[in-house]
């Protein structure tokens, strides 16, 4: 994730009161009262209170919290399936709460597609017609929408099932249809409310993986709701933690694991935070390829491209780590007719011993996101740790 991402949605001071006297509830909120007291005093539920955050173009933002924390309310305020009580939601310059009915309709069609926890497929429509729904109501002509729906179904691995009815499919497949319905629509933001929570664990893992791949391919701005920390860590670029209708922390999975904002977050991640006993050895993977000190730039380039790498470690015959060579430098050296890589060898990457605790590793991933080299006391290369592996290891050990 680079810093130059543009902001897709700005949410500012968003609040939602369920009940007939929202003003009263908000006044009490401004006096510093919390949800339970407000409920007791006025009978109004403070669903969301003063929520502000940005959604960046192309990111996968996870909103996490316990049941009743206001996740569904928040995501539904974005497309006004629930009317916000106050606050701004700005998408591409439009302030959603201020739109009139017609503009809202257009805004929903253009910007939002939603995937639901219990799939919410139309039972009287075939898989194909479900996937076409969003396009159909926008008046897209038959040939085009057939094609787009087909493509979307293919994306989620459902080609051949176009004519089935939703009731003939398993849960996982039904949710794929739900996903295809959202993708076919070609809207700019994907809203997913506990989209995988109704699936059994194995299928759920698969779906997470597929969503990640899809997201990687299509770079679609996605807001994903879950009450499951593993899921959040696994797929989120950033995570927003909600409690009683308020944001307690916004951050990358690393931020949340390493610096829990408060007791609540800390308790949330308690089950997961095994990082103190886990070390680099646990998360380390074998090195896919290394170069020798006497390799020429062309050999290095071939090794890089064969293994799909953009940098490669250089070792001695005894696997003693000498340094790293970047692809662009090797490319330049080859063009300049250099015979040796000694000149372009550098030391600008993190290296740790195998017993380094995992939670120390987060800080080491620099902005170029180079992997961390793991070396023994004789500087021999044992393996590498990539960013994702740390999280995966943490998440998995949380499950055990």
């Amino acid at each position: 994730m680079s810093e130059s991402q543009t902001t897709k949605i700005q949410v500012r001071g968003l609040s939602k009161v369920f009940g007939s006297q929202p003003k009263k509830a908000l006044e009490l909120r401004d006096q510093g009262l919390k949800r339970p007291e407000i409920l007791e005093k006025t009978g109004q539920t403070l669903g969301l209170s003063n929520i502000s955050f940005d959604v960046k173009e192309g990111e996968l933002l996870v909103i996490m919290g316990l049941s009743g924390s206001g996740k569904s309310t928040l995501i539904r305020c974005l497309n006004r399936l629930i009317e916000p009580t106050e606050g701004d939601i700005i998408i591409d310059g439009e302030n959603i709460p201020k739109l009139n009915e017609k503009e809202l309709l257009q805004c929903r069609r253009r910007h939002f597609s939603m995937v639901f926890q219990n799939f919410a497929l139309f039972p009287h429509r075939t898989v194909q017609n479900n996937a076409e729904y969003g396009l159909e109501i926008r008046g897209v002509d038959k040939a085009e929408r057939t094609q787009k729906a087909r493509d979307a179904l293919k994306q989620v691995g459902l080609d051949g099932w176009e004519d089935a009815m939703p009731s003939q499919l398993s849960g996982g497949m039904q949710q794929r249809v739900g996903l295809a319905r959202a993708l076919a629509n070609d809207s700019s933001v994907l809203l997913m409310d506990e989209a995988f929570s109704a699936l059994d664990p194995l299928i759920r893992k698969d779906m997470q993986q597929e969503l990640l791949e899809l997201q990687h391919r299509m770079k679609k701005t996605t807001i994903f709701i879950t009450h499951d920390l593993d899921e959040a860590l696994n797929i989120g670029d950033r995570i927003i933690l909600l409690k009683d209708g308020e944001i307690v922390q916004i951050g990358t999975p690393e931020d949340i694991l390493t610096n829990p904002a408060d007791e609540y977050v800390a308790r949330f991640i308690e089950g997961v935070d095994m990082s103190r006993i886990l070390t680099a050895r646990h998360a380390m993977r074998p090195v896919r390829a290394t170069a020798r000190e006497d390799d020429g730039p062309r050999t290095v380039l071939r090794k890089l491209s064969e293994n799909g790498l953009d940098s490669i470690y250089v070792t001695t015959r005894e696997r003693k780590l000498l340094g790293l060579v970047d692809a662009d430098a090797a490319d330049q050296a080859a063009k300049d007719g250099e015979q040796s890589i000694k000149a372009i060898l550098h030391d600008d990457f993190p290296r740790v011993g195998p017993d380094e605790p995992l939670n120390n590793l987060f800080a080491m991933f620099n902005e170029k996101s180079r992997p961390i080299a793991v070396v023994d006391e004789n500087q021999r290369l044992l393996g590498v740790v990539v960013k994702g592996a740390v999280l995966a290891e943490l998440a998995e050990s949380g499950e055990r």
Partner: protein
Amino acid sequence: MAIDIPRLPLGDWIEGGLDYLTTQFSAVTRGISHVTQGGINSLNDALMWMPAWSLIALIALLCWRMSGVRLAVGSALGLALIWNLGLWDPMIESLTLVVIATLVAVVIALPLGILAAISNRFYAIIMPVLDFMQTMPAFVYLIPAIPFFGIGSVSAIFATVIFSMPPAIRFTTLGIRQVPKELIEAADAFGSTRSQKLVKVQLPLSLPTIMAGINQTIMLALSMVVIAAMIGADGLGNEVWKAIQRLRPGDGFEAGIAVVILAMVLDRLTQSFRKTKKAQ
């Protein structure tokens, strides 16, 4: 301490109101009467022009397609019995009245039912009205029909429509309100307009329920059409009526059995329609 509360002249008021309506709207009622009578006559003529056996075959075929062999054979035998008893023409007359009354009732009931499903205020207004319409003894409707449309089949249709409409309205409302909230959310989330939501989601999903309502409407219409013989409607009711006046219980029962057969065929047929719709 007896306070003498004067009797409320409720009946007088109603009569006054009806008088007012009949004089004010005589042109309208005459128009309606004309059109309805025309409809009744042409449908009657068409059905009677067909030889009885061919209509029986047609209905049996329909039953076979919609339901199966059993219903096809059953209705063919039942209808043949009616033919054999010499009650074919009165049966056709009754059928015509049922068909036309049901059509009119459904055409009025669908929009009302949809409105009641969408608007809570309209729901609050119409439900007591429906209760009233359904608990009022059936033949009371016959009386105001006469000043509007005179003695005969048009009055019968008028009374029948009013009497048989409530279930169609109720079930339409019920069916639409029963559509799962999640599906409504899904339709909204993709930016459906209100009418798109109605046509593409709410109505198709409530169709089985609406069909159940229409089935009840047909049954009520048939029962009313028989009673409407009291105000001069033709058909099987009239046969029963004649049998009563001539004190011939045998004839009366024959006509009664014909009514039962017609009712069963109509009921099973509409039910099977509902089921096949649901299975799709």
